[in-house]
């Protein structure tokens, strides 16, 4: 166990502003040798910003950072690495068309003169692979390996650079429950070896499982640091949000009708080998939520794009309420009754340079009553926008505010408002609560349930298994572009769905049970 005052990192009174936001205001953080310390808070609480300052990527406006007792004045990543700080970023810092080996040694290459000494690199990497039981394939290119493996590569990369402190930014977001367990074993091994770990997360169960101490941040401010033994998830959630939260909504009983969306043997291209869709068939019926579960990158995004007309269907049929919409343009699909909350709201959901009202009316600004000929009827648009802003509780309430400045939650509510109001037959909700604060998650989930009650079909995709389980009536589990199984919500648990997400069929296991 770590000695009480043996601090390897001390950050005090840290202050950091960006042009639009005061990201960290009075941040405090200490790290002992050989501990796992979780840093928790909602999106935008300043967790990542704090750690990026420790790693030297951002320079603090005020406060002091001490590493190994030394006050560090002008940190750069180079200096931080030299002091033994390593960071695994939420977005992996791996170059796609270089090999695993090249990525690991980058910046710290063993040399023979000016030439890279590949044999020595390999030997040094193998040492970490064996010590911590992490298999990686050094000669594969990054775009040929899975997300889980890419994460192990990232960890080996930081160890290779001589890190004693590992900062892990939301490391479990891309893992299945089973992979998580294995990942935690690795972390414990690292801790027992004397490494210190900063675990950034907002998943409270995981935090309670793995941490020694926990620091909570909220809207850039330091809230508290507690020992794991002295707290519980309810208390942590309260500290994170600043009030009590109830995320578990009573699931409305589904009143199921005729099929709204039928997918028949869909094949589409994929960004990676594992995300190519190969022969997917299922349907979504009126009045039910079908959730797609799966580890990110197993073809969920590609499938949704294919349904929505954003990616070419190479084989198969997409049928919406009896009408064949295969390879229709997105606009034609919309006209046929498809509405879509896209997974990346900044790329496809919103025009961030335009105002709230312009985004709300975006897909029908040329229709009556919003336009007469080539003139826009600003009054009508304003009235329409004000209605939706009130109904969906979008803040700020001023319709002319540019969406660029909105928080993740409110930006997402604009997209949700527009798509729900479009009153289609099918609503696709892709990662509806990604990068959204807990308050907004609560209201988005309520809205989805209300839409279902109106008798519409909902196709939900989420990387958050807990969300899929909480909302869906049926769960389609995808693995490497194929369906591993379809589970009714009564039978679904994070265990059996998790196994399917790993690509293991259920039948054998079920036989054992029965």
């Amino acid at each position, binding site marked *: 166990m770590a000695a009480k005052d043996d601090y390897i990192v001390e950050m005090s009174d840290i202050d950091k502003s960006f042009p639009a936001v005061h990201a960290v205001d009075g941040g405090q953080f200490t790290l002992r040798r050989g501990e796992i310390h979780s840093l928790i808070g909602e999106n935008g609480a300043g967790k990542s910003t704090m750690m990026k300052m420790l790693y030297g990527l951002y320079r603090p406006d005020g406060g002091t950072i001490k590493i190994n007792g030394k006050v560090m004045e002008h940190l750069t*990543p180079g200096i931080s690495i030299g002091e033994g700080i390593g960071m695994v970023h939420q*977005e992996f810092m*791996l*170059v796609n068309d*270089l090999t695993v080996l*090249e*990525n690991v040694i*980058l910046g710290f290459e063993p040399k023979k003169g000016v030439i890279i000494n590949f044999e020595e690199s390999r030997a040094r990497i193998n040492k970490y692979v064996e010590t911590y039981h992490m298999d990686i394939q050094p000669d594969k290119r990054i775009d040929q390996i899975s997300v889980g493996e890419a994460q192990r590569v990232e960890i080996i990369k930081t160890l290779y650079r001589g890190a004693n402190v590992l900062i892990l930014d939301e490391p479990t977001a891309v893992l299945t429950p089973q992979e998580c367990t294995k990942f935690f074993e690795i972390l414990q091994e690292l801790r027992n070896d004397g490494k210190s770990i900063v675990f950034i997360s907002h998943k409270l169960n995981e935090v309670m499982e793995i941490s020694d101490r926990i620091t909570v941040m909220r809207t850039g401010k330091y809230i508290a640091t507690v020992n794991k033994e002295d707290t519980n998830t309810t208390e942590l959630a309260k500290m994170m949000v600043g009030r009590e939260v109830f995320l578990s909504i009573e699931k409305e009983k589904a009143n199921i009708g005729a099929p709204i969306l039928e997918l028949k043997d869909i094949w589409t291209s994929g960004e990676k080998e594992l995300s190519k869709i*190969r022969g997917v068939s299922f349907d979504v019926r009126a009045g039910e939520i079908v959730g797609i579960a799966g580890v990110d990158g197993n073809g969920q995004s590609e499938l949704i794009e294919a349904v929505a007309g954003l990616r070419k269907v190479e084989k198969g049929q997409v049928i919406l309420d009896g009408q064949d919409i295969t390879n229709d343009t997105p606009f034609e699909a919309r006209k046929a009754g498809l509405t879509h909350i896209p997974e990346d709201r900044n790329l496809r959901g919103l025009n961030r340079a335009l105002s709230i009202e312009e985004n709300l009316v975006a897909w029908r600004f040329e229709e009556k009553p919003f336009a007469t000929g080539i003139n826009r009827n600003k009054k009508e648009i304003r009235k329409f926008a004000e209605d939706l802003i009130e109904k969906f509780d979008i803040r700020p309430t001023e319709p002319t505010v540019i969406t660029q400045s909105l928080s993740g939650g409110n930006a997402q509510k604009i997209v949700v408002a527009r798509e729900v109001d479009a009153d289609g037959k099918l609503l696709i909700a892709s990662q509806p609560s990604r990068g959204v604060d807990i308050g907004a998650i609560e209201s988005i989930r309520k809205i989805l349930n209300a839409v279902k009650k109106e008798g519409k079909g909902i196709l939900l995709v989420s990387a958050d298994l807990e969300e899929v389980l909480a909302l869906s009536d049926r769960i389609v589990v995808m693995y490497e572009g194929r369906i591993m199984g379809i589970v009714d919500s009564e039978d679904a648990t994070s265990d059996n769905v998790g196994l399917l997400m790993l690509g293991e069929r259920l039948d054998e296991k079920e036989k054992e049970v029965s």
Partner: protein
Amino acid sequence: MNDVFNITLIYATIRSATPILFAALCATVTQQADILNIGTEGIMLTSAFVAVLTSVTTGSWLIAILMAIVSGIAIALIMAVANIRYNAHICAAGIAVNMFALAITKFGLQQFLGTAGTFTSPDIKAIPRIHIAALDGIPVLNDIFNNWCVTEVFGIVMVIVLWFLLFKTVWGLRVRCVGRLPMAAETAGINVRRMKYEVMIISGVLGGLAGAHLSLGYSQMFADNITNGRGFMGVAAMNFGGMNPLLVWVGTLIFGFIDSVGARLQAYGLPSQFILMLPYIFTIAILVLAMWRKGRMNEKAKSAL
């Protein structure tokens, strides 16, 4: 037809390709760091002029090459500072440099060499050719390998040197990373700006060689806009070769081949305007082909069928 396609066509191809080859390498090294070097043309033109001027005044082709390199670096650094330090778009900086080069060389031609349009003089000390006496009289080998210009040999050496630098050395790995995912380089403690400056300086050296070879090796003269789009053809060849020096070299050889065949066809009464158009038509064709191939490969790689 034997007058067109005969053994001497091999050397003729190398001869026409070399100026474009240096330009293509100049564009390749920066492209590896994700800098599209439109300014290759301007670097080349300026250093072609400086090479002739220095050659006439000092009487040394070696000093002329060195000065051409220095001027190449200077022009490259203008772009580098504008782009890396002041965030100007690299294409805007490149276009500015190209126009500046046209103007400054025209001005310099009048001011220092006292003529307009074209400057030729017996005082121009050209880059020497390597005469291998032993090959005299041996039919095929003599036609292919004898009397190469020093820089023509050096061009091929540079292809291999650049390939080695990019794919085998620490520096090359870092450059490739800077060009593909600068954040990854930064988090590895690599100074991204510095790497970009280094790459630009090397492109200045290569562009300087391109210019010097054009005015002192390929020809012995300077004329307004003597480069005549060769810098851009270099950029096209870089695209064709997908930033790999060896394939880029192949691209420039295609240009060289077209150019030499075209020149010979003139003797058969093809209109000279048509012959002069050929390199540009092939630039477009090669770019279309390169992009089409890239698109096809991409599509094929992504398809699930």
